[in-house]
């Protein structure tokens, strides 16, 4: 949908949550993107390569893990992956509303690289 603003939100979120001095040491940003978030992983990665240029994160790479829709049936407790947006339990045919995964739009891991000792002492 609006991958550029999501990209800007990634950078803004990290800027808010981390110490300023750490920002330029970010090397990898790992996202979890649920299918229901309407975010296209490939498009997001592509946009990121441009958005990061104007930021402190120009040495960072973006990794996106696409999360399938996982639901739990309240009738028979079956946990299953939802295919074709059919929110019906394959075991007992009951409609399900309990969605465990697939809506998320999260940064779940950030990898930093601290500069070498020698560099700091220079």
């Amino acid at each position, binding site marked *: *949908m*609006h991958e550029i603003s*999501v990209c800007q*939100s*990634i950078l803004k*979120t*990290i800027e808010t*949550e981390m110490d300023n001095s750490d920002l330029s040491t970010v*090397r990898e940003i790992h996202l979890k993107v649920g299918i*229901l*978030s*309407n975010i296209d992983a490939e498009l997001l990665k592509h946009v990121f390569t441009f958005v990061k240029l104007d930021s402190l994160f120009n040495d960072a790479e973006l990794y996106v893990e696409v999360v399938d829709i996982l639901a739990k049936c309240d009738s028979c407790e079956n946990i299953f992956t939802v295919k*074709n*947006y*059919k*929110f*019906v339990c394959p075991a007992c045919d009951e*409609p*399900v*509303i309990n*969605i465990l995964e697939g809506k*998320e*739009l*999260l*940064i*779940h*891991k*950030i*990898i*930093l*690289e*601290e*500069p*070498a*000792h*020698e*560099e700091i002492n*220079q």
Partner: protein
Amino acid sequence: MKKLTNKAVGTITVQDVSLSLLKANDYIAEMIRDEMNERNILLLNLVSSPGSGKTSLLEETIKRLKDQVNIAVLEGDLETERDADRIRKQGVQALQIVTHGTCHLEAQMIQQAMPNINFENIDILFIENVGNLVCPASYDLGEDIRVTLVSCTEGDDKPKKYPSMFLTTDIMVVTKEDLLPYVPFSVDAVIKDAMEVNAGIETFLVSSLKGNGMDEWCEWLLKKVKEKKESKVAASA
């Protein structure tokens, strides 16, 4: 001195975090929800494709209900004041949010608009979202009820094509009912598909132009206003 590269000798630190990218929106949405609960106002978020009849449904709803409840409307559009002008002609407060290209309303836009509305005695606040069945699905605006319109001229395939919208919707309103004889649209099929995506969805069938189904829709709205007021009384008792 030869400069060593970070890559060769740097220390790697892994931070496991869980930062939601919609956290800022959801936080503000909760503030709006709290304020609306405090003021005892039923908040509805109307979403649909462009041209499904959101503004027409609001105009007809206001005509029928303005003597019984006090209504205010927030209009979201990329450009122009046209929708707010249409609503004001019905004699109620309407405020236009012009997004200048943004494809959806965000909670922050609602929060910014709220000080410009006189909430005294207001019972229902409608938010008419930007016409779009994709992006508005992800943005909670603090509403009590999300209403998605599908006009029968759009086709009955919308719930399966835009599942995340129907998954987050409480009410589906099938509009332009008077055109059913002229278009290949199956009400049963649209309900079946919507229920497969979201079994909790309730459906209304209306024609804003001819008035069919408007009584049921308006009665339901009045019932929801009453329920909201009673829940406040129950909570404070």
